[in-house]
């Protein structure tokens, strides 16, 4: 009978391997610590904002959110115009950028010749690397005068006051360029690369066997994309949209430069407005009284809560989509 030594004594174990021989334990500890740290950071920011905003929270309570007058010198603090401004511009940005971004992703992943895919993809990604102040400048000098102004005037004439087609309050009032519309459009350009690039990666990750299944049963290219590839990647595309929304909600610089910064409540996309992030950035330096500072911080708190809630909602959405269409063997 041949006696063989156990394998472990025959092969020398390298130092690095020996150090991490019980690798799973230290690895787990590192992961848990990192997770806890992230969580603590989020909670910490929330708690800090909560503590520093006691002045306005005590004095105004919920009317801080529902009041529409913002007059710091008269000690009137109503945050509604900013909340509405942030919501309008972000939603407008998504309305423009989601179809466009998903369309670009479909083109890049499904339709364009493989040779063009990489260069076009890089161009889309480069767009994401442009600093937002540059977008703001470009907005002021190029985008607003050449695109937003003609577009706004057209909308105003067609659908606005005594509009030719129908009368929509959405396009009422005087229009000078700097407006919700301008901010929403700039934001759309800024979140477009995020949505397009991530959606493209999601579509490229859809297994080829799914497309084969679709074509093999007699799908046209259009049907294969709409009924097989997109549904397969739906949760991932939703994730891309959420990332885009996150960027739109918090974007400050470019928005400040084109929205007009007027703290008013308006139902018209053509009127100037203000967003939560913009007012904090613009007025923090002038906040002379504790109440003023507290009011600005409370706007920050609201923005924070909004972002967290939206993220949770989005997770829920993604999760429910995944649960309905599990892609892995359950």
């Amino acid at each position, binding site marked *: 009978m041949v006696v063989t030594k156990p394998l472990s004594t025959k092969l020398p174990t390298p130092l690095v391997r020996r150090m991490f021989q019980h690798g799973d334990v230290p690895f787990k500890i590192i992961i848990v610590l990192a997770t806890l740290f992230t969580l603590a950071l989020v909670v910490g920011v929330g708690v800090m904002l909560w503590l520093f905003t006691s002045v306005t929270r005590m004095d105004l309570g919920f009317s801080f959110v529902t009041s529409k007058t913002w007059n710091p010198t008269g000690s009137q603090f109503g945050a509604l115009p900013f909340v509405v401004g942030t919501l309008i511009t972000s939603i407008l940005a998504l309305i423009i950028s989601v179809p466009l971004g998903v369309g670009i992703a479909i083109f890049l992943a499904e339709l364009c*010749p*493989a040779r063009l895919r990489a260069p076009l993809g890089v161009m889309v990604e480069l767009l994401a690397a442009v600093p937002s102040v540059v977008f703001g400048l470009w907005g002021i000098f190029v985008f607003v005068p050449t695109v937003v102004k003609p577009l706004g005037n057209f909308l105003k004439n067609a659908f606005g006051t005594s509009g030719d087609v129908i009368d929509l309050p959405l396009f009422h009032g005087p229009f000078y360029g700097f407006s919700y519309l301008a901010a929403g459009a700039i934001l759309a350009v800024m979140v477009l690369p995020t949505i397009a690039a991530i959606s493209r990666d999601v579509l490229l990750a859809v*297994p080829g*066997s*799914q*497309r*084969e*299944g*679709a*074509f*093999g*049963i*007699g*799908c*046209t*290219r*259009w*049907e294969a994309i709409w*009924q*097989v590839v997109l*549904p*397969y990647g739906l949760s991932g595309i939703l994730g891309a949209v959420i990332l885009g929304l996150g960027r739109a909600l918090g974007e400050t610089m470019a928005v400040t430069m084109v929205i007009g910064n007027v703290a008013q409540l308006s139902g018209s996309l053509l009127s100037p407005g203000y967003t939560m992030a913009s007012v904090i950035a613009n007025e923090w330096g002038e906040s002379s009284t504790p109440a003023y500072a507290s009011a600005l911080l409370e706007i920050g708190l609201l923005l924070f809560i909004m972002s967290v809630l939206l993220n949770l909602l989005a997770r829920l959405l993604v999760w429910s989509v995944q649960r309905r*269409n*599990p*892609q*892995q*063997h*359950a």
Partner: protein
Amino acid sequence: MPIASSSARVAISLHGVTIVQQGKGVLPDMNTSPLARENAQSHAPATAGEAAAAVMPKMQTESLSIYYGNFRAVADVTLPVRDRKITAIIGPSGCGKSTLIRSLNRMNDLIAGAHAGGKVMLDGEDIYASGIDVVDIRRRVGMVFQRPNPFPKSIYDNVAFGVRLYGRIPKAELDDIVETSLRRSALWDEVKDKLKQSAMALSGGQQQRLCIARAIAVEPEVILMDEPCSALDPVATLKIEELMQELKQDYAIVIVTHNMQQAARVSDTTAMMMMRADRAGEMIEFDETQIIFTKPRDKRTEDYVSGRFG
């Protein structure tokens, strides 16, 4: 553009339900759908035309060569596929079996740079001729792939998928089609209580039978199977083989397989492929399966089927 637009869809008859779509195109021959053929045979005596049809293969490649760019992967293959018979394609890896079977419903069109020379006749009509509706060819010549690839939808929606492409049809009729297809693919009893559940929760063998159900739901005339059992365990493999014997009552079936016993067990005719010196795959022998496995003419075939090769 290899894929025709949906506007080219025409009125077709699935399971006796006529679904009309606008657009122009060639009407598929109703008499060639399996059910219609069955009816025709049970009601009418054999005619001279039918006798001729029995001789003419359902599909036939004629000096077919397939290229990936400049590389010739399949060279000059002339292979008949008889109706209601199982045709096996065997041969060592890389000899072009998948390429050949995928040319029978023009799936190779999806690969950039792939093109074909020669002809592939389906009922006497060249599917590579210009003006052919590729989408309709793929409905008439269905395909089952190496790995089961159900869509991440419910079992019901998977089977109904192809039918729904042709427009809305009443729920009751769709239910019927789904049940019939699942019964014919020997899956009904296992899934009838969970049709709304995700197809991804099925076992590999069940998923493959679901893919077969999905393929036959659109009433194809030919079913192509590229190593359909290579990802399955022996029990699931046996189920698929039994199923193939059932299906061949109605369809022409082409199967690529690595498994010699499987080819010998299930097929009626066998094509033996081999790579030439220039790496192009050629068909070195085609005959009744029994002959291929007992007294092949080519020495290489003999070596291969007896396991002395590749």
